[in-house]
């Protein structure tokens, strides 16, 4: 991902991850399987999985804004 990860971006992504129900897990390919709390921790620490989630979340939000996703 080329864009800079600011504190504002991290806060936005974390806020959206908070909406994940506690009874769900996410399989992210080679990174493994994660709970909501593990993803949030990854975003906070900017780990590899955290950066991946930020990339996905920001791309998704842009697509929503552009009306690509309806």
């Amino acid at each position, binding site marked *: 991902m080329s864009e800079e990860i600011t504190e504002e971006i991290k806060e936005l992504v974390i806020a959206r991850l908070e909406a994940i129900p506690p*009874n*769900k*897990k*996410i399989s992210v*390919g*080679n990174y*493994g*399987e994660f709970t909501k709390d593990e993803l949030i921790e990854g975003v906070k620490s900017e780990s590899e999985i955290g950066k991946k989630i930020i990339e*996905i979340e920001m791309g998704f939000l842009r697509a929503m804004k552009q009306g690509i996703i309806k």
Partner: protein
Amino acid sequence: MSSTYLITRPEHDDTTYYLSIWSKETIKLAEERDFKVLDLYREKANKKEFEEKIKKFSPKLVMLNGHGNFDLVTGHKNEIIVKAGINEGLLKSKIIYALSCKSAKILGPKSIEAGALNYTGYEDDFIFVYEPEQFSRPLSDKTAELFLSPSNLFIESLIKGNSVKEAFEKSRTALKKSLSKAVSTLESDPTAARFLWWNLINFKSHGDIGAQVLD
């Protein structure tokens, strides 16, 4: 003469377990349609077995479940099964669907250069959401279904005689339907939407999209 369908189904973590159980549905359909099925399950999903079965039976349709990277797909316990620059030539004259991460980026085009008819898969990580409480019965997991049912549809369409183009469009349409459901309904998990969208933009097909499994 019946067609042959080779499938790898490693099972060594949550991810491969779910992929294995869900893709078993494609085996049922293939058997109903009189395909010869080569099911490389658990320990049999290894490079040696894969190469032997490919050379001996020359399956027209190959589904690779497992982890992966840009240039490779792995089997049980992450043993590399096929890798660009090593053995992608084995995929010559075949239609391949890789339900694994990233391999459509490099292994896909490389396998086409080596003579594969078509290689369909994902150019970045394949992601899905699941419910751990459904772990003993993954096919009842409605959250995972949003992701894995559209995936199965690609193979099922090919088995039914559709071209890659038709199968790809059906699978994409089902994925879009899952995405719409996740975005717009309360019954569905809205948190799945971001990952359905991610899979959708990374779902790619290389090679001859007019190819068919049935001659």
